[in-house]
């Protein structure tokens, strides 16, 4: 049986967990002292050896990303933290930055030292005002304590950190769109290659890492690569947040080794709400193909989830019971993608627009079976045909929901409308005998 392993969330129940003093009392910034005595390349090797893979969804090895920075490029190097958490279902970085922004700051300082950069940015989405306050406060406290600035802890290493707030655009979570946004432009993805490691912010060598990835670094430095790689599975090392939301008794953040299953997590979260049963779920946000109750025992690591036809993504487990209309859920997601498509690439801009039209008539009982083929055809023209993965993400819920719930789509037009009562799915719905609709 897998157990929870609180590391990043270990001190979140202390009232001032966000304060520098509390963080230090709990052993914070010891990893930085240790890191500053190490050679920068040794830290990169340590992070590589830990097996840490990006926690922002794609799962690219973090240490390898750091190692890609060209040695001979004379331009300044930059570290940019992607704190633009916006993938539907994903809600781990926001509570982390609210409860313990200092672990992120310590990670930023260590990572900057490791890659030899003197200017870091934290790009945080703007719609989370109190998180912005906590980050600003954390940077100010760290600066006042000599942890940021010139000659940090007498090491000769200088670093400045700027908290930069976005302005409401999902696409800025894509790393090259984020860089364009940080440069003061519309957030539109760039063609890769060149990757940010070679030509990132201001066309300089840049590392872009997710909040949770960077926050995992102090632990690795303090406890060692083997400590980290001792958790998780062979190719998906370590721990991470599993964020349960929706029709579960106790939604929330569950920090566990990669490879835990939804069955185990549901058991910890009190199960599906009483009188109901699991219908479908996302393993890692709305851009990852949905799973059903067939997939309760799939180990939630990168390889196993991939082999079962989806992606681990951000471990954003959105749980829906049998009162939920899958057509309505999919329509709403596609409305989101249509709204957030930056418009640069035609397949994504047009494909999402048309999928909304088709899904809307299906949901309202006015579709036909040909519409299902039309949707799949649009997905075929979306997948892999744009600069970034936003369009690919949009195809995920459409294709997977048709795959698992084709009959339910058909029922909508044979029955002349949606057979579900939305009131039954709400948080305040009266418990029922589990009849479903």
């Amino acid at each position, binding site marked *: 049986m897998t157990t929870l392993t609180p590391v990043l969330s270990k001190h979140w129940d202390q009232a001032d967990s966000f304060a520098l003093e509390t963080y230090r009392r709990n052993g914070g910034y010891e990893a930085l002292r240790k890191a500053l005595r190490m050679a920068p390349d040794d830290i990169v090797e340590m992070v590589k050896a830990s097996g840490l893979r990006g926690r922002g969804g794609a799962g690219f090895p973090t240490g390898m990303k750091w190692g890609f920075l060209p040695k001979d490029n004379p331009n300044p190097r930059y570290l940019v933290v992607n704190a633009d958490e916006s993938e539907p279902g994903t809600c781990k970085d926001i509570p982390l930055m609210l409860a313990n922004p200092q672990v992120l700051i310590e990670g930023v300082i260590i990572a900057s030292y490791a890659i030899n950069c003197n200017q870091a940015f934290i790009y945080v989405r703007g719609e989370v005002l109190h998180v912005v306050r906590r980050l600003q406060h954390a940077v100010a406290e760290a600066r006042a304590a000599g942890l940021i600035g010139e000659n940090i802890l007498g090491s000769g290493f200088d670093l400045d950190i700027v908290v930069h707030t976005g302005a409401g655009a999902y696409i800025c979570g894509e790393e090259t769109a984020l860089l364009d946004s940080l440069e003061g432009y519309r957030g539109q993805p760039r063609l890769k290659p060149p990757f940010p490691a070679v030509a990132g912010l201001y066309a300089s060598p840049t590392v872009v890492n997710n909040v949770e990835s960077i926050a995992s670094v102090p632990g690795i430095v303090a406890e060692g690569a083997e400590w980290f790689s001792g958790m998780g599975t062979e190719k998906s090392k370590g721990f991470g947040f599993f964020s349960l939301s*929706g029709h579960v008794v106790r939604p929330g953040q569950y920090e566990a080794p990669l490879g835990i299953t939804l069955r185990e997590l549901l058991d910890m979260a009190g199960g599906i709400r009483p009188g109901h049963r699991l219908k479908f779920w996302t393993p890692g946000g709305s851009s990852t193909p949905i799973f059903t109750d067939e997939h309760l025992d799939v180990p939630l690591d990168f390889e196993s989830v991939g082999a079962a036809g989806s992606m681990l993504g951000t471990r954003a487990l959105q749980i829906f019971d049998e009162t939920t209309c899958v057509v309505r859920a999919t329509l709403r997601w596609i409305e989101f993608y249509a709204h957030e498509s930056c418009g640069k690439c035609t397949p994504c801009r047009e494909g999402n627009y048309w999928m909304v039209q088709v899904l809307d008539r299906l949901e309202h009982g006015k579709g036909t079976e040909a519409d299902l083929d039309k949707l799949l055809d649009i997905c075929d023209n979306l997948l892999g045909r744009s600069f970034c993965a936003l369009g690919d993400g949009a195809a995920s819920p459409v294709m997977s929901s048709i795959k698992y719930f084709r009959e339910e789509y058909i029922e909508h037009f044979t029955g002349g409308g949606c057979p579900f009562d939305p009131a039954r799915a709400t948080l305040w719905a009266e418990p029922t005998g589990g009849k479903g609709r």
Partner: protein
Amino acid sequence: MSTPIPGPQPRGERLGDDARARLEVDAKEIISRYPRRRSALLPLLHLVQSEQGYVSADGIDFCADQLGITAAEVTAVVTFYTMYKRRPVGEYHVGVCTNTLCAIMGGDQIFAELKEHLGVGNDETTADGKVTLEHLECNAACDFAPVVMVNWEFFDNQTPESAKKLVDDLRVGADVRPTRGPDSVCTWKQASRVLAGFPDGRAAEGVQAGEASLRGLRLARERGWRAPEAGAGDGGNTGKEAS
């Protein structure tokens, strides 16, 4: 009969000389944070929004002047990002998440009931200028669904009743306290100033974590589950225990 020709976006309010002088000082500070001036554009737009409540034509010109770029270049950016408003916003911006998870958990019903209760549509403001209602995309609080944001502060686990009381309180000026946020809600303009990078000194107010954020930790404490200790060797917990 002539049909009216659609004109350009109204200029909006003028930015007075006093305000401009004040903002220039702030703008200098913002620009100094970045290796390249243009990176200051997003915070500068939050700054002009903190002065006027929205981004007026004068606000756009101001940003363009500070950065040495054209008003057209600034406008292209303003219109890309949903947090920048081109028309005045109420004192309180009330956002209801209607992305899939919140919608299904009741966000759709909350949004519908608020529209009726306030007598406004999406992206419209009540006649008293107090509340602007808008539906939002995912705000990264899914474990607290359904979520309502007021001036970008979290109001978790809402119901139609709690949301209606919330907007009523906002309109009469009664105390309103976010679930995870400071002790009270600041105004839309004040919020924009924080987003521009000028702290309001309220970071230490409010809870460090909401209930849902703590559920895994509490369960681990209850069951004696811990992450392994470094160098614990074979006897260390690796996140597995015998069934």
